[in-house]
Structures are given as structure tokens and as C-alpha cells.
């Protein structure tokens, strides 16, 4: 079981923060990396989309949306009843776990491509679809604890946030252009691993920066932040098997179930649930679940999938 080379940059970023180095990616470059990754993933998925029929995609997409809506319903009772969190904080954190992390997905895709393992090319569509239902479920779970959400603003944030817009935009352009995407692929395809490495360097630093918050929040945060990805991965893998996906697809859906959002969901919930403690949810997903997925879980999932297939 080997870690992918890009994970080395994540560890380097974390190390730099722990030894208090002045290493820091300029904010503009970090944002550029995010935009690049979203477009690259979307384009690749869009170009592959044309070879699949709607009859295949529609039921699978519906199943994935239901899966995304169910995950917060698993996370919420744990946080509310065992963690003794307030209803609104538990609902907000649960929404993070129903949604997905594009960075985690990118690491998984990089690992698959470095091993030469094939997967269903339309997976970026699932990534975009999984961003939405958990946010809605999270808001509904918090109902009663908060005043009615401004659904117009929330709807706008969900539909047009940077992540969803660029992913869906990339998929649409890729599907429309088909083979013509080859002209931009020297940039979006060949540089993917390099840009992901830069992005992970900063992510490692940010995750390590949040470690004191983890310590302050207590051991429950650590327990939940490790358990929930494992539950999500088991659910994702089971669903992928039911849908008849390839081993690469089973691995990717497990990774999507395992990941937790820290960009799209916090932005949407800042509008919908401003009372929620955003810091604790972001600490949970960014400082515990993301490093756990990248360093430990993803290699384990791949080893399991390869073992069983």
C-alpha cells in the first residue's frame, strides 16, 4: 500500500506549519488552483459523458442524490444525542458530511490514474450532484431551532457557488465539445497532478493550523471525524456495487461517501444557518476527516477494492 506522490506535498505543508515555517501559498494562487482543479475535473467528466446513455445515468444519478441526502441523517443523531451538540450545530456539521470534498476526489482520481485503473468517466457529475442534497437536509434538520431560512438566497448559493458552477460548467463544456476538449487538455490534463500537489501543500498547512482547535474541542470530535467517513465509505461502496460500477467506480463512490465538504457547504450554510458554529464544522471536516481520508482511508479503500475484485 503506497501513498500517491501528491500526498507527500500535503505532509510537507503540514510539516511546514508544525515547525512554524513562513511557507504560505499566496491567496490568489490557492484560489487559482481550486478553479483549475474544478474545471479540469468537470471537463474530463463532460468529455466522457457523451459515451453514456441517459438511461444509464438517470437512475444512477437519482440513487447518488438519495445517498447524499441520507448521510446527514446518519451523522445528525450522533452529533445531537451523543455529542450533545445544539440542534443547529449538529445539523450544520451533518450537512458537511453529506456533501463532498472535491480535493479528496481529486486525490482519489490522481491515485487511480497513477495506477492505471479505469473508472466511469461521468463521476464528476456525481461530485456536482452530491454537493446539493445534504445542504437542504441540513437546513431541514435545523428547522425548529432557527427562523425560516431565506430560501431564495440559499437556493442561489447552492446553485451558483463556485464549486457547483465550475464543475457543472466544465461538464457542460466538455460534453458539448467532445473530442475538441483535446485542444485544452495539455493544460487541464497534463498539469493536473502538479496543480493538485501545490493545492495539497497549502491544504496540509491549513489542516495543521487547525490542530490546536481539534485539541480544544475534545476527543469526541476526533472519534466522530474518523467514524463518519468510514460509514460513508461503506455506504458508497455498497451503493456502487448495487449500481454495478467498475472497481474504480466502487472506489470513487466510497471516497465520495467518505469525504466531507469544507468549501461549498460552509458558504451555503453561512447564508442559511448563520447561527451555526461554522468553525467547529470546518475543523471537523478539514483538520480531521480530510487528512484521515488522504493519508489513511483512500489507500485502504483502494487496497480493499483491489483485493475483492
Amino acid at each position, binding site marked *: 500500500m503506497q501513498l500517491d506522490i501528491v500526498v507527500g506535498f500535503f505532509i510537507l505543508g503540514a510539516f511546514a506549519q508544525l515547525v512554524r515555517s513562513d511557507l504560505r501559498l499566496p491567496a490568489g494562487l490557492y484560489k487559482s488552483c481550486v478553479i483549475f482543479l474544478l474545471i479540469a475535473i468537470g471537463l474530463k467528466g463532460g468529455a466522457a459523458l457523451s459515451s453514456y446513455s441517459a438511461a444509464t445515468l438517470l437512475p444512477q444519478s437519482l440513487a447518488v442524490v438519495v445517498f447524499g441526502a441520507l448521510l446527514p441523517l446518519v451523522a445528525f443523531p450522533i452529533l445531537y444525542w451523543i455529542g450533545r451538540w445544539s440542534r443547529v450545530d449538529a445539523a450544520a456539521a451533518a450537512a458537511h458530511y453529506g456533501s463532498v470534498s472535491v480535493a479528496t476526489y481529486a486525490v482519489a482520481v490522481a491515485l487511480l490514474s497513477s495506477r492505471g485503473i479505469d473508472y466511469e468517466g461521468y463521476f464528476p457529475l456525481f461530485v456536482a450532484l452530491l454537493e446539493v442534497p445534504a445542504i437542504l437536509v441540513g437546513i431541514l434538520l435545523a428547522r425548529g431551532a432557527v427562523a425560516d431560512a431565506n430560501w431564495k438566497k440559499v437556493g442561489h448559493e447552492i446553485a451558483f457557488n463556485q464549486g457547483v458552477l465550475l464543475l457543472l460548467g466544465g461538464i457542460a463544456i466538455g460534453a458539448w465539445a467532445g473530442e475538441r476538449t483535446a485542444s485544452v487538455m495539455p493544460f487541464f490534463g497534463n498539469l493536473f497532478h502538479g496543480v493538485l500537489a501545490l493545492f495539497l501543500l497549502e491544504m496540509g498547512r491549513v489542516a495543521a493550523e487547525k490542530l490546536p482547535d481539534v485539541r480544544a474541542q475534545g476527543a*469526541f470530535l476526533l*472519534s466522530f471525524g474518523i467514524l463518519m467517513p*468510514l460509514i460513508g465509505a461503506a455506504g458508497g461502496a455498497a451503493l456502487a456495487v448495487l449500481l454495478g460500477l467498475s472497481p474504480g467506480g466502487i472506489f470513487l463512490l466510497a471516497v465520495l461517501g467518505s469525504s466531507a465538504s469544507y468549501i461549498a457547504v460552509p458558504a451555503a450554510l453561512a447564508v442559511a444557518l448563520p447561527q451555526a458554529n461554522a468553525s467547529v464544522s470546518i475543523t471537523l471536516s478539514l483538520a480531521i476527516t480530510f487528512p484521515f481520508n488522504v493519508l489513511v482511508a483512500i489507500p485502504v479503500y483502494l487496497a480493499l477494492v483491489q483485493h475483492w475484485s
Partner: protein
Amino acid sequence: MVKAQFLFGMAVGAVVSAMGVVLTSSGIADGSLAAVGLLILLANGAYWLAQHRTPLAALRLGNLRNSPPARQQGH
């Protein structure tokens, strides 16, 4: 940290450790998952002990203050 959180943490740690040990012993994965499980167990144990050490120390101090010699000295 309340008792339910502690028990939950210990259960999660035990399950993750067990999964890690099974995967390691069957040669599927390395020991990283088992190590994470152990870390959860240790973290929960450490938090529980740290939280309950302070009241115990205070209780002991209270007992000392209420002991006959302490009371005789007017403490």
C-alpha cells in the same frame, strides 16, 4: 466530556483498531488504520482522565481540609 461521548469514543477506537488489525493481518493494508484506532482510544482515555483528575484532586484537598488536624488549626 460526558460519559456517553467517552463510551462512544472508546467504541469507535475499538472498532477502528479491530478493522485495522484484521486488514493488516490479512495483508490487505498496512497498520495505519489500526494506529488511528489506537490514537482514538488514547485520546479519549487522556481526555477522560484529564477531566476527572481535577475533581479528584479537589476532593482530596477538601478531605484534607476537613480532617481533624486541619479543623483544629482553624482552616
